[in-house]
């Protein structure tokens, strides 16, 4: 692969790969560092890249492997909750809803963190990247059935956590009223 082709095909994937790494490691600077390493490694063997059938899937796998390596090497603690800047942008939010949204977001993140690595990656590729089941299967080297099952479990785990939280809030509100 020529330098121009590398710039045309591989480099535009950088943000997608970054989001994928970020979904696993949940640390922006670390994820950025990983993507730089991945892209430089790909650059070093750009001659071999033209022989690869599904280059995007290959790049995703390279990113995923390096991120998981980094995660196990540093025994990275996923304590950082991605900041909620986007939640703050919605027009209808008030300080109260922002607080509730932050809390809800952290619940979603906790749920995602509790998923298996496969479920997490399947969820991320479907929800954030809008990939088809076939594309996810190719990217993660899994069967389409496993992809569907993983996504089903991931969505339903998050759903039950959100419903639990909602009923907890309602109970609290109801409790406060009765106390009065």
């Amino acid at each position: 692969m020529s330098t121009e082709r590398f710039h045309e095909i591989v480099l535009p994937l950088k943000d997608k790969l970054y989001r994928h790494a970020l979904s696993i490691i949940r640390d922006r600077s670390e994820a950025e560092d990983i993507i730089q390493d991945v892209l430089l490694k790909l650059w070093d063997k750009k001659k071999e890249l033209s022989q690869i059938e599904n280059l995007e899937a290959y790049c995703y796998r390279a990113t995923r492997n390096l991120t998981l390596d980094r995660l196990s090497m540093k025994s990275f603690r996923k304590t950082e909750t991605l900041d909620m800047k986007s939640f703050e942008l919605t027009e209808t939010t008030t300080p109260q809803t922002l607080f509730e949204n932050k809390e809800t977001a952290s619940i979603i993140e906790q749920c995602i963190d509790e998923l298996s690595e496969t479920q997490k990656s399947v969820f991320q590729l479907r929800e954030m990247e809008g990939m088809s089941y076939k594309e996810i299967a190719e990217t993660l080297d899994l069967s389409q059935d496993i992809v569907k099952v993983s996504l089903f479990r991931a969505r339903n785990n998050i759903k039950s956590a959100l419903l639990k939280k909602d009923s907890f809030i309602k109970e609290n509100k109801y409790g406060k009223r009765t106390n009065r």
Partner: protein
Amino acid sequence: MEREQIDKLLGKYWNCETSLEEEQLLQQFFSENVVPDNYKNVAPLFLYTHNEQKEKLSDSFDEKLNQKIEERQKKYITIKLFAPALKIAAMVAFILALSFSGLFWINSTKKQHFAETYNDPLAAYKEATLALDKLSLALQKSEKASLETLVQLNELNVDWDFIDSLNMEIYKNEEEIELKEEQNLKL
């Protein structure tokens, strides 16, 4: 979107039966509209995923990456440029080593076994004649000595015929003994 439609889509969504387009519709609905109260529990999920899609590398990333790529390219170019030079240098070194070892080998085969130790030929000639004189003297002495021994032997007047007859007797005696032994064996 109608409430019924949302309910239907949500049901399909939890069962993983929605298409990508339908999922996009749900995301749009929950992120762009004022969410009705009865969906407030699940809305944050769509808002969350919608916002995660906006995550991007920092602005300085491209600059840093290009810098690193340029560094690598420079290294690659220097190696590429110097590769033929290195090849030539290796060839020259090989040829030099080969020719030097050849020269040494030729020199070692040409080496004289009798080295010239005299600068003056006359002195060498003198030394040579002296050595040869000594040798001839020694030979003359040994010749004289052997002649003298022969003379002395003659002067001893040894009776050689008598010594020969003694020898013959011994020989005869031995033959007789052998014959007797053979006969004894036959008996």
